[in-house]
């Protein structure tokens, strides 16, 4: 969505303040819309499609009797309807609700109808990010780009990161690296900390669970580690029960990153279902309905393997009762 190289605009999903798990310190995370993978466990399904899209949260709707504003123009006829004899709340015909834009959701007084994705300029994004700058100073935090896949909007991302640096903030990205190398080349020079996913090692299984195989991803990672020896890389695995929560996977990632001293850490992110409700809001189906979070014991055991491999005692993780 680049319209000029000096002040490009991009498709932004959300700017989240006070993030504490997306890099060092207190951070502001900018979620960009659009992703080239289709991970079945994705907790941000609204971030995948590279266009603005309509969402609907039925629990907020106050129904036809009290409102019904979306049943009239300018909303497309038939896109919204009520089931007679039911709760009088609106239902969405997702096939007809394809053209819904800002003026449509603006009508909805409750925010039950809303839009994921908004075009924003670099300036707009950074102005909002900058509101937190006092907190970065104290905590060593800064801005993190996430997604979707932020490297799919390389010019916009590069411009955001550059501007963040110009305003004095630390920068980080969260990426899956499933993009052409030319994108990486544009983005990474402006990143201080690269948080990147090692989802699955085996190309076929990667394809099965994430929609595409991981050849490009692995090549990008190696090349990035080598091309940017001064950057800080942190590897991560979203721990999905029965998919990649086994010792073998952990050890293979450790083997992969071991030669590179600039990969300073390897984190495990246990699977959670926080994203599930959003599938419903978008009229999609959540496939992992029967999945549960991995047990704390398992997570602890796998983390111990990492600690050992990285030469840490693991004690740091535990909370200590402070005595003055």
């Amino acid at each position: 969505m680049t319209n000029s190289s000096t002040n490009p605009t991009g498709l932004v999903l959300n700017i989240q303040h006070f993030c504490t798990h997306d890099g060092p310190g207190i951070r502001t995370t900018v979620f960009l819309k659009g992703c080239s993978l289709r991970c079945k466990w994705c907790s941000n399904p609204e971030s995948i499609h590279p266009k603005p899209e309509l969402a609907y949260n039925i629990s907020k709707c106050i129904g036809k009797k009290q409102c019904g504003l979306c049943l009239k123009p300018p909303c497309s006829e038939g896109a919204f309807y009520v089931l007679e004899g039911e709760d009088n709340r609106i239902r969405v015909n997702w096939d007809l609700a394809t053209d819904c834009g800002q003026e449509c959701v603006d009508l909805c007084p409750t925010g039950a109808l809303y839009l994921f994705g908004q075009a924003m300029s670099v300036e707009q994004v950074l102005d909002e990010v900058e509101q937190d700058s006092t907190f970065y100073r104290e905590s060593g935090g800064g801005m993190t780009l996430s997604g979707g896949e932020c490297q799919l909007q390389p010019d916009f991302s590069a411009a955001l990161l550059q501007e963040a640096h110009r305003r004095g903030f630390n920068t980080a990205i969260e990426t899956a690296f499933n993009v052409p190398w030319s994108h990486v080349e544009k983005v990474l020079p402006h990143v201080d900390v690269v948080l990147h996913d090692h989802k699955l090692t085996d190309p076929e299984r990667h394809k099965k669970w994430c929609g595409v195989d991981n050849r490009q991803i692995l090549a990008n990672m190696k090349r990035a580690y080598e091309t940017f020896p001064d950057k800080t890389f942190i590897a991560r695995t979203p721990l999905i029960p029965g998919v990649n929560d086994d010792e073998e996977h952990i050890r293979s990632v450790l083997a992969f990153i071991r030669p590179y001293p600039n990969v300073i850490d390897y984190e495990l992110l246990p699977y959670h279902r926080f994203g599930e409700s959003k599938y419903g809001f978008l009229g999609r189906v959540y496939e992992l309905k029967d999945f549960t979070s991995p047990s704390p014991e398992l997570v602890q055991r796998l983390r111990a393997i990492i600690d050992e491999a990285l030469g840490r005692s693991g004690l740091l993780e535990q909370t200590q009762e402070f005595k003055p």
Partner: protein
Amino acid sequence: MTSVTTPTLTAQERAIAEGKKSLYENVSDRVLRMYEAIRGYGPPRVALDRAVLFTESFQETESQPMVVRWAKALKHYAEKAPIAIFDDELIVGRPNTWLGRWGIVYPELDGSIMPGGVEMFRKNKGQAGEVIVTDEDARLINDVLTPYWTGKDYASAFHDALPEETRFLMFGPDPKNLLLPTCVVLATSNIRHSQNWTPDFNKILTRGVKGIRAEARAKLDALTEPRDMIYKKPFLEAVIATCDAMTIWSKRYAQLATEMAAKEQNPQRKPELLTIAEVCNWVPENPARTFHEAIQAQWWGQMFNRIEQTSSAMGQGRMDQYLLPYYQKDLAEGRIAPESATELFQCLWIQMAQCVEIKLNPVAAAGTEGFSKFEDICLGGQTTDGKDATNELTYLILESTRALQIPVPEPCIRIHANTPDRLLHYVAEVIKDGKGFPKLLNDEMVIPFYLANGATMKEALDWNISGCCENRLINRETNVTGNGGINYGSVTEMTFRNGKLKVLKDIQFGVQTGDPRTWTSFDQVWNAFCTQLGYLAKHALIQQHLALKIKPNYFAAPATSMLHDLAMEHCRDLHSHGDYIPGAIDHSCFEAIGKGTAIDSLAAVKHLIFDTKRLTWDQLLEAMEANWEGHEAIRQMCLNAPKYGNGIEWVDQIGWEIEHFILEYLHQHPKPHDQCFLLRQIPVTFHVPLGKVTWATPNGRPANEYLAEGISASHGMDVKGPTVALTSMAHGRDLSYREKGGDLINLKFSPANVAGEEGTRRLMQIIRTWSELKHWHVQFNIINKQTLMAAQKDPDKYRNLIVRIAGYSAYFVDLSPMQQAEIIARTEEHMG
């Protein structure tokens, strides 16, 4: 990304779940026994000995100068009041004869409405906020106190002397109504003798009352001017009598302890009683020699100030500073160890925890729910030469308060740029216990404030905390008169209802600023708002000037005044500060409550009627008039309109404009002698009763619901997290006036969000940033929502659960259902 786990419990929640008596182990059996006895006693009871003895004395002294009458009453009390020492007590002296919570009533303050208050409390039996008033107590109040004080008390005199228009705004159309204020224009001079106060207790410790008495004596002997015989002599005589009274009272305790020791069979208790006797024989008459004597002397100082008057909030001063020499000396000479010092501190805290504020006026009671008492211990901060003042006592005091499940006293930390990380880390850990302690005040804000108001650098560096988020220069400030204030909710309603207030019978209270339907620009809305605001502000100042003028005829405070440098220098009682004591910094406070409600209402109107034109005036006004009933879609639009606290510049700017308007108004209407009115935005719990009288407002709030508190956003409306909330609040302030006083900020986190060492570090970073943003005050509620809801259902199990209200903490079960709901509704901040 984080994983879901079972809820993290705070130390307080864990203690309750496990049925433990204290949060940590550093509490001796003695202290725990006393704690249990106090909690077992149940609701607080009115302590009437002081009222009865004061009344007896006042009947004898009617034509004498007020300050002398007060001193004589104190002496009469000291000689005659029943005294008691209970098992396990090491620090003694109380105004009652039971081991349990007590609240003194002060008939000279509001004796006229006391029968109404008694009735209210008798009806309230078994409900939150219950106060024990026995049949005998009721008889004393109705038959002994009320007959004498009716028509002689301050509250009724103040009411009668109010200009008609002001009285109308404060008490409504019935000229006889004194019990039920309107909550439109507010006053607190009629519910307490004094504004929050911090007496300079250190003078009792270092000089003894003997030293103060000698100073008064010498001054008295040196008086020669005829004028001084009228103005100064009574004060000095009163000081001498007050010093005598304190000595008499302590020596009676010494005598009692000696007698009890003689009869005591328990070989452990016997020497304790002998020590108590020795200590009480020596202090407060003489300078304290040991740590134990220093603590007992401090308590005598507190107690005598409480018997003298109520200020609703008694700051304890910079205890880690003035107690340090005694502690270090005893430590060096082997008289004490950190454990025994902790026990003495805890004995003092247990005494303080028994003292509650009982308001006989129903609105005052609602505004200070949970028997709010701001018994601040000021810790940390800087020395008078600008160095960090943290010392070993800072930690010891904080640690001694940490374990106990009592809502007072309250440790407060003065934070500054060089507050050591070690202290901040410990503070964050204590905050995570979940009792709302300690609260934090900001040197980086308060010191410039004092410099702008004429303090020297040395004085400014030595400021004290006093009250929920107020501060004091304890030897320069003289403002001991309760404050005036306004209800932003009323201002908002009057703006849109042409000066009328619906809950108050739709009577014309404010200015007729016109029918909003005729307004075609937001400027007209703003002008109407300012007109209403200015009108109420004017009357808030009028009532304040009246209070300042007439109060010296009703109150005096020799025990408090004799600890104040300027009062002693000029031989003037502090209650005469309305006439200005030379050299004083003499503010009066102007309270404004519900800022977030006003901002959001104006923002909703600007957005919906003018900017997007989504609503017409008819639609909005009709919906509000119907309290949104049948207009849910419109209410939803209002609720979803841009809100304060989310970093939206034009919305936060409205906050700035409101503040700027009031500050400019106060600046234009100063007090004499180049003194000013301070704007404070601190709700205590007044945002609940003030909301009750406010009809539906354009921010989507239904009629009667609480207003936003402090300078916080409306409940649950700041959805972007604490960083944005804090910066938004910072943008909504105007710091260019010396009239800019304290603001209150509440932040609420779930315990999981601040768990572990990482969570502690985050809290430290938030605190540092809060300080850099030049905020005045912050307090933290760290508690699981489930715990609060469980406590609503099972108050017995959770009877010791302490929550943060506004500048103070209280037992959750002591709060009304509405206030409990308000606490639950506060925005919970999340870390992503």
